């Protein structure tokens, strides 16, 4: 081993001496002990490395980072436990419930709706069904819940059950040339909305809507993306208003603003996944991760985004990330 080889090897020798026991450094260290020039080089190298290492290890850690990590972990852990408990609780109970009369017909009708909608899309006819967001599974679940409720209550109307099936209504889709609208990246959509929301006065919300369902109906009449799901924490939050909007490049986007106790304003944004170039890289709401907004220094928003089915959802709020987990 010559001095050049020894220097090369000793460059990877940690300044705190933690590698002193590794045999591969033994010869190089021996040479440094025997050769004054190499010894001086090593001493200087270690001193420089130690100074840099100390500086790097002195980088301050953001206040609250540990709590945020633990909050998210607690959320993940609890959600698993709750799921398990819920499974156990419902498995027995559900088995005793007989399928309600007419369930089969409801499912078949819903399937027909889905097939018809798919056929419409395939033939590029610009018509959509109102409340197409109500999937077969949702109908089945809603009917099952309805059946449970009817055990002790008078039979409610279809509307009262929350089954939003208006299969007699077809609407024309937005008067926009979708083919000319190029998809944008998720972060670009988030950033645009963050900038718009920075000046809420310029967003004229429809504040006549008294609940999320009314907001959904409003957005549907505007032919804008309608959320097919709400995070649990938002379902209970007060709706401030909703607005049909467009990204700079023309993609229709829906905004629903909620006021959540302890969090302040929470903005839910819904966009068709087809409008986004990288929506398929997002996870579902089950494994959502919380992020600081791009350009957070300016907008102060924290964000969460996820994709379910053909819709992509984004939440922008100035609440802390550890509080955001309470939304899901």
């Amino acid at each position, binding site marked *: 081993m010559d001095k050049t080889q020894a220097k090369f090897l000793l460059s990877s020798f*940690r300044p705190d001496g933690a590698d002193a026991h590794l045999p591969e450094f033994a010869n190089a260290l021996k040479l440094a002990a025997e050769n004054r020039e190499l010894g001086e080089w090593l001493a200087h190298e270690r001193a420089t490395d130690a100074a840099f290492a100390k500086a*790097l290890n002195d980088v301050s850690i*953001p206040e609250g*980072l540990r709590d945020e990590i633990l909050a*998210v*972990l607690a959320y993940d852990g609890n959600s698993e436990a709750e799921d398990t408990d819920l499974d156990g609780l419902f498995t027995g109970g559900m088995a005793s419930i007989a399928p309600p009369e007419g369930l089969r017909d409801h499912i078949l009708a819903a399937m027909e709706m889905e097939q018809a909608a798919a056929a419409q899309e395939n033939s590029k006819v610009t018509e959509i069904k109102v409340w197409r967001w109500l999937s077969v599974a949702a109908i089945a679940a809603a009917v099952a819940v309805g059946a449970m409720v009817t055990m002790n209550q008078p039979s409610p109307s279809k509307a009262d059950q929350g089954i939003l099936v208006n299969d007699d209504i077809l609407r024309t889709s937005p008067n926009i040339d979708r083919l000319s609208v190029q998809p944008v990246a998720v972060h670009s959509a988030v950033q645009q909305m963050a900038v718009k929301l920075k000046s809420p006065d310029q967003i004229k919300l429809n504040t006549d809507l008294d609940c999320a369902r009314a907001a959904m109906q409003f957005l549907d009449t505007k032919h804008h993306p309608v959320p097919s799901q709400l995070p649990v924490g938002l379902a209970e939050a007060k709706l401030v208003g909703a607005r049909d909007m467009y990204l700079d490049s023309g993609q229709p986007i829906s905004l629903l603003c909620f006021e959540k106790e302890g969090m302040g304003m929470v903005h839910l944004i819904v966009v068709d996944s087809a409008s986004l*170039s990288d929506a398929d890289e997002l996870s579902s709401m089950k494994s959502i*991760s919380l992020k*600081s907004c791009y*350009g957070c220094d300016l907008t102060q928003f924290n964000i969460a985004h996820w994709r379910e089915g053909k819709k992509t959802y984004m939440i922008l709020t100035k609440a802390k990330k550890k509080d955001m987990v309470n939304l899901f």
Partner: protein
Amino acid sequence: MSEFKDLVDQHYQALYRFAYSLAKSPDRAADLVQQTFCIWAQKGHQLKDRSKAKTWLFTTLYREHLWHARRSNRFPEIDLEEVDYHLHSHEPDASRGLDGKRAVELLQQLDETFRAPLALFFLQQHSYKEIAAILDVPMGTVMSRISRGKDQLRAKMRDDAEGKIISIEGKVKKNG
């Protein structure tokens, strides 16, 4: 939860410093760390040898960073936070002492190839063999990158001492 907590307490600070060296902004670094522990929460149970948890965490964080970097390259974005950060780096700094912030700034000016191995080396948490495992490169490559990375770092520090700052566009600007 107790195991999670212990793991977080043991490693989140070093992970953050590593992430900060890679990610160029404190918020992204925090996101990377948080994301790493989220992945641990989902997949950590698959790791049979718990003594390798530390290496697993650093490996996962590095992969998350690469994934994010690739995504950003595909969809270039103007990160206002980063711009803001870099603008600050052009401001004259009379002290120029090598504190943590300056150390990270210098690391961030290095080529991507050298940044990760050098950050891991200076954090002193891993031997060069472990660094090779984290970065998934041969041990000789790690040694070479540490050695060459240090050369590049020294050059940056010399420039720094002479009052030069390398801008994000690669131009050299005189201080003052």
